């Protein structure tokens, strides 16, 4: 009995051709391609089907045209406009045209989609998705009731098992080793036994999801802490468009749990304290199906101006006029959790909602093949890929449309896997130098033995509150500067953090400390990028610069960490077909 001394512990070595970090949709989809040419291991800090992707409710966007006329070109247009013209149009066009085969392929892999009367994949309306270039809403979201993510995640996991992809579950990646500009391998902690594993490899695909947990109120799962982005950032790899963080308009009041946009797609409407359908005022054409940034600001404006429900800080999402069969058949999950958590039957009573932190548009910059960019000039890190929410291709620009994230994970997860397969012969097996191992051990040792008055949870809570209060839907120079000061302050306090759990087996406090350390980096990158961008675009709204400024800001933000502090570079937006126009919905 007794605790093990980490510095003395054996290290287990493995050799796999491709290491994928993350077992969400992006990682799993990538694995199905990479495994065709060599051995693949997926490292995931959760059991695979516990990944955050399972929570996705609404659907996957693809212009199948199963329910009414649709066209990938319209999807392309909607995504560009939804992105407030910051999305790269070559990537968006590729994604929207790939959407159709990628969804068909999912069906072939066994995803149990809901069906139309004639047996095709069923589709419903979703925010910002239209026909005839913005004229009226279109049914484009392919769904499996309101458990789409769950249905796809399980099917892909099953297929990965069938195809001999190897899983190491409950392994937390602590370092992604890049040396000489080449991906070498990964150092991970086996959570169950608390020991280190080394993976020397030919290619690495980072598919570690988003980082919504830096905010206090969020729809994101607990594991969505983003350390892999920060691990790369610390090695000089830039992060792109970090200032753009999406707030979903309809989180359950007090809990942040998401009510899918599909609820409005099926006919639900938003109501303020006066009983008005206020979205008519903000978006006369699309109303309750306008893009999320527009609706989130509208809700908070209503609340700010005293028109919340009974003057309080929420509005209602009203589904009471819908056919109860729709709730039962197409929205069973949300009906059940309204009942469980709020004691409300959405068929009879409206649901109290407020915006909740939901999705990171920014992340690790990649090209269309998923290769990680090291600079704004297109040069990339050999053997290193990123896909899914952790990556920024950029197809979502300043604001993501609903249903485009699952699509992004699948399309670019597949592309990353394909590119690994294609270039496989040219990749050499990497080597992890011993100083990197010592560094990881040193950090674990610091966490094990450091003494001081600070604790992980209160520091994290403070960070989350700061971001929520000062860097969420509405921002000003002042609020952002205050946030930055607080982040620095908290980071300083982190030096005096002391862990009470000294165990090796399933030590969650230590993992959370490790996550928190990296959350500071992401919070800082977000706030600093938001300070730099002196305009309002998509999800980034500066009260002191309330207008979009294409003259100066039609470009992507790249933030770099250097020994001297952070640096910025900018990359032009790729515009092929749709010139920026005013965004009216």
């Amino acid at each position, binding site marked *: 009995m007794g605790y093990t001394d980490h510095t003395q512990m054996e290290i287990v070595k493995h050799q796999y051709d491709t290491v994928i970090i993350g077992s969400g949709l992006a990682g799993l989809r990538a694995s199905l391609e990479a495994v065709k040419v060599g051995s693949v291991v997926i490292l995931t800090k959760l059991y695979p089907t516990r990944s955050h992707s399972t929570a996705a409710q609404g659907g996957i966007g693809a212009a199948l045209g199963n329910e009414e006329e649709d066209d990938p070109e319209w999807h392309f247009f909607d995504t560009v406009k939804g992105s407030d013209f910051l999305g790269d149009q070559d990537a968006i066009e590729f994604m929207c045209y790939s959407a159709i085969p990628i969804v068909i392929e999912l069906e072939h892999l066994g995803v149990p989609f809901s069906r139309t009367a004639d047996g095709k994949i069923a589709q419903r309306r979703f925010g910002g998705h239209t026909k005839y270039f913005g004229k009226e809403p279109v049914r484009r979201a392919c769904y499996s009731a309101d458990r789409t993510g769950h249905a796809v995640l399980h099917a892909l996991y099953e*297929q990965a098992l069938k195809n001999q992809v190897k899983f190491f579950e409950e392994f937390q990646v602590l370092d992604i080793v890049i040396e000489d500009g080449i991906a070498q391998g990964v150092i991970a902690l086996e959570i169950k036994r608390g020991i280190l594993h080394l993976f020397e490899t030919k290619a690495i695909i980072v598919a570690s999801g988003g980082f919504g947990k830096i905010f206090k109120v969020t729809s994101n799962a*607990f594991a969505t802490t983003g350390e892999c982005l920060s691990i790369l950032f610390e090695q000089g790899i830039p992060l792109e468009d970090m200032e753009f963080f999406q707030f979903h308009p309809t989180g359950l009041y007090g809990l942040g749990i998401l009510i899918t946009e599909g609820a409005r797609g099926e006919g639900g409407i938003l109501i303020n304290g006066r009983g008005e359908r206020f979205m008519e005022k903000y978006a006369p054409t699309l109303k309750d199906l306008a893009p999320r940034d527009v609706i989130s600001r509208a809700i908070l404006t209503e609340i700010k101006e005293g028109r919340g429900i009974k003057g309080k800080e929420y509005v209602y999402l009203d589904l009471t006029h819908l056919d109860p069969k729709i709730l039962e058949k197409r929205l069973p999950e949300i009906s059940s959790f309204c009942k469980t958590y709020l004691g409300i039957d959405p068929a009879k009573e409206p649901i109290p909602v407020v915006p909740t932190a939901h999705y990171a548009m920014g992340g690790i910059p990649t090209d269309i093949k998923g290769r990680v960019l090291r600079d704004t000039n297109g040069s990339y890190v050999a053997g290193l890929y990123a896909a899914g929410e952790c990556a920024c291709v950029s197809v979502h620009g300043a604001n993501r449309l609903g249903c485009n994230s699952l699509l992004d994970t699948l399309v670019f997860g597949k592309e990353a896997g394909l590119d690994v397969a294609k270039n496989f012969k040219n990749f050499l097996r990497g080597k992890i130098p011993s100083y990197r191992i010592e560094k990881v051990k040193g950090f674990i040792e610091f966490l094990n033995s450091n003494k001081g008055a600070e604790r992980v949870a209160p520091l994290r809570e403070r960070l989350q509150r700061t971001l929520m209060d000062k860097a969420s839907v509405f921002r000003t120079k002042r609020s952002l500067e205050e946030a930055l000061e607080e982040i620095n302050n908290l980071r300083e306090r982190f030096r005096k953090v002391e862990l009470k759990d000294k165990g090796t087996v399933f030590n969650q406090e230590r993992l959370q400390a490790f996550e928190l350390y990296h959350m500071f980096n992401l919070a800082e990158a977000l706030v600093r990028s938001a300070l730099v961008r002196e305009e309002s675009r998509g999800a980034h709204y500066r009260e002191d610069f309330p207008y979009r400024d294409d003259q100066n800001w039609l470009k992507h933000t790249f933030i770099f960490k250097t020994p001297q502090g952070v640096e910025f570079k900018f990359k032009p937006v790729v515009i092929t077909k749709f010139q920026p126009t005013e965004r009216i919905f």
Partner: protein
Amino acid sequence: MAQERRYIFHIKRFLPEISSEPFWQTYELTLSSWERVLDGLIKIQDYLDSSLGFRKSCAHGICGSCAMKINDINRLACQTLVKDLPEIIKIEPLPKLPVIKDLVVDMTPFFEKHEKILPYLINTENLPERERLQKPEDQERILEAITCILCGCCTTACPTFWINENFLGPSALLKAYRFIFDTRDTAQADRLISVVEQMGIFHCHSALNCLKACPKEINIPQHIIKLKKLAVKKALRRSLKI
């Protein structure tokens, strides 16, 4: 309006590095009426005792991480509101699985059962260019089965599993159902054999514990009965042919 109340969390703990025996520990905390057992556990871990181990991810009953035994019933901590429980809340790990630490159990034996029933769609026909067609009523036949979140509440509540660890258990059988009754799957026969020949459907004695335990309210016994019927029907047909 949210009301606050004091609760006593009485937790069965196991710290293998400190003692080879489990022990009970009690924590007192104040929670609002809208909070869940998971919120209580998080508060304990965050502010009272960071060594407490438990799993969590989605916090709204869709990922299956937080299954545990709460006041003698297997359920999800994130879906159990404290206001629906008495003041003393007794929490234990899921039964009959090896405990790693506190409420964290080793799920490997549970997942291995799934692997035995070929848990993936098998279809050897040529693929059409578009999606395969499936009637809505056919999709509805598997609708309940596909909502399974693999939390383990059902299998670890099953008395047959308690006495025979080789029993496939309700969750794996439900997964088998999900493929056997999927009109797109072509491996029905192999799968039926796998659920008959391994300790499968005919070892289920309809104790119905799984019905009560399932947090997604899936009527698992009914699914198993349909599997039994199909197996018998196929067996009869085969014996008639001979």
